[in-house]
């Protein structure tokens, strides 16, 4: 159950797209929470999914749609708050949700995705479909009550859900050691009678393999799996939050950047496998894609007040609330 070469190249391309997308954000529109350093975990997991499988994500939302293969232009335009954005400029950096690829929510409420992913699993089961649902969440999110509540429900109903932890060691400034009774999130799985697996999140192939096994299990009706990918966030928690304290050492950061970059590691593997030319072609292509996307985003129009009311309800009733329009002041 390994990826073939073309799939490996696609995996590399998607990881690189995440990296370059976020570098472009930093350069052109610095908002949000970056997934740089975590690309191996994200894309490794997504490679095990079909286009019609569901995914829920987090405030650190850029990687998930790109990992799932989404078009870049609408994502970039969303970062810029434009009307051509995937969410029309209403969702923004924490909520890059491309439903055409099964993404149903990037929840900036930490832990908010657990029930939604589980609900997608329930829907799959009731509709007798063979899709699966994958829930990305952070180590910090594992302390939200919805974690145990949702996993338990998936366990009793044998729902086709993969709970996938991007354990980057920290929740803002709070380390896993300071916030978890014991440090392995996967070890909690046994309490719900389901398998828990730990994997090196910087090894995208390894991530793919454990995820594919969980997906197979889910499609076979055998229920959920909890996967914990140990990974690392290279940059600060968020581009926009000033952090007045030091909570991790420079050495630690340098070690991960230098020795444990999932993209560097994967590139070396591909090159060693004789794919140097293909790798370079991908790199050139990704650079173009990002330049185009930034231009597209810049050139796109802003949303308007009417977009607010237009996107509130599927079936508006007595709405907007006032005849005069949105404000209804005198």
């Amino acid at each position, binding site marked *: 159950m390994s990826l073939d070469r073309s799939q490996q190249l696609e995996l590399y391309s998607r990881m690189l797209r995440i990296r370059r997308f976020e570098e472009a954000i930093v350069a052109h529109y610095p908002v949000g929470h970056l997934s740089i350093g975590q690309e191996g975990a994200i894309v490794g997991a997504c490679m095990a999914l079909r286009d019609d499988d*569901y995914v*829920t994500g987090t405030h650190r939302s850029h990687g998930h749609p790109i990992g799932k293969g989404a078009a870049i232009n609408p994502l970039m335009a969303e970062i810029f708050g434009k009307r051509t*954005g*995937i*969410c*029309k*400029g*209403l*969702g923004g950096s924490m*909520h890059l*949700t*491309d*439903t055409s690829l099964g993404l*149903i*929510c990037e*929840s900036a*409420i930490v832990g*908010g995705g*657990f*029930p*939604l*992913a*589980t*609900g*997608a*699993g*329930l*829907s*799959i*089961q*009731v*509709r007798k479909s063979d899709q699966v*649902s994958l829930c990305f969440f952070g180590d910090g999110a594992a302390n939200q*009550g*919805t974690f145990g*509540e*949702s996993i*338990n*429900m998936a366990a*009793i*109903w044998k729902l086709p859900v993969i709970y996938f932890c991007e354990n980057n060691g920290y929740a803002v400034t709070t380390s896993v050691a300071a916030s978890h009774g014991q440090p392995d999130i996967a070890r909690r799985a046994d309490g719900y009678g389901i398998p828990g697996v730990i994997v090196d999140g910087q090894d995208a192939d390894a991530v793919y393999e454990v995820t594919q096994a969980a997906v197979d299990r889910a499609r076979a009706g055998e229920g959920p799996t909890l996967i914990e990918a140990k990974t690392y966030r290279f940059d600060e928690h968020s581009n926009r939050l000033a952090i007045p304290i030091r909570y991790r050492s420079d050495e630690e950061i340098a070690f991960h950047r230098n020795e444990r970059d999932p993209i560097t590691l994967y590139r070396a593997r591909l090159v060693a496998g004789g794919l140097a030319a293909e790798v370079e072609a991908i790199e050139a292509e990704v650079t173009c894609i990002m330049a185009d996307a930034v231009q597209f985003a810049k050139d796109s129009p802003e949303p308007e007040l009417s*977009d*607010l009311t*237009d*996107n*509130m*309800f*599927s*079936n508006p*009733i*007595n*709405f907007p*609330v006032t005849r005069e329009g949105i404000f209804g002041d005198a």
Partner: protein
Amino acid sequence: MRNSTQKLSYLQAIVEAQREEMRRDERVILMGEDIAVYGAQSLFDEFDHSRLRNVPISENSFTGVGVGAALTGLRPIVDLTIASFVYLASDQIINQAAKLRFMTGGQLKVPIVVRTSTFYNNRTAAQHADRPYPLFMNIPGLKVVAPATASDAKGLLKAAIRDDDPVIMFEDINLWGKKEEVPVDVDFLVPIGKADIKRAGSDATIVSVAGCLLPALAAAELLAREGIDVEVVDLRTIAPMDKETILASVAKTGRLVIADNSHKVGSVASEIAAVVSEEGFESLRKPIQRVATPSVHIPYNQALERQLYPTKERIVAAVRAIL
């Protein structure tokens, strides 16, 4: 068939609404704790059990599971049973169900119905007796209904299940056993967002919120005996509110009493008073009167509890005060 009716209690009407919609649309499922205890046992005989889910005691998550299912092709009814538990699920209701369509620029729809019952006047004390519907009217993106008759319960629930937006229905446990003739037509719907004039009148308007309809009508009867002709508007939908019907009634009567079982401060009655003081001020001849539950918690002692909710006597007194 189309115009025939059947004698049903309020709770039976709710069960029938669920049955009819589950028959009509296989995407409709029902989730809740011990659903058989809350009236759904007969559904187990008819429907695939995969559509009837007894859930663990995990309110925030099972409500969110309903939301996730709604995003992906089902039309879940989530029974939160007792309304005091709604706070546990309010994160998923407010931060997810109400916001997801907007946040995704309209990519998603969220056809979920959350049912919950106000368990007041039932000797269950402060942690079970809340009537928290006012909290949800402040949340954009939610529809909130609170029927006071069996027909309205059936018709509003059916409309809610067919609606593509999230709807919360507040039921009233004190009405569960009340029987009346209810339409049997499977397409009988009560429109969300429309108040209902349950009694026409010209001297004063009583707007009743949720379960206050019965004392409001009783008050109107009492006053009628003295020749005072009161109009009773049953709000039915709390959000989005039917301002037109309320303003039209006040334009006619010039006098407004609002009866609401929720705590007075920040109540639905407050919102109605605000709307009328803003948009219907010129028609008002006297101060608005809110008859609501005082701002104390609900005690276990039954004699005390009973006094707290609006009674016909208090409503009559409020009308008299502005004649």
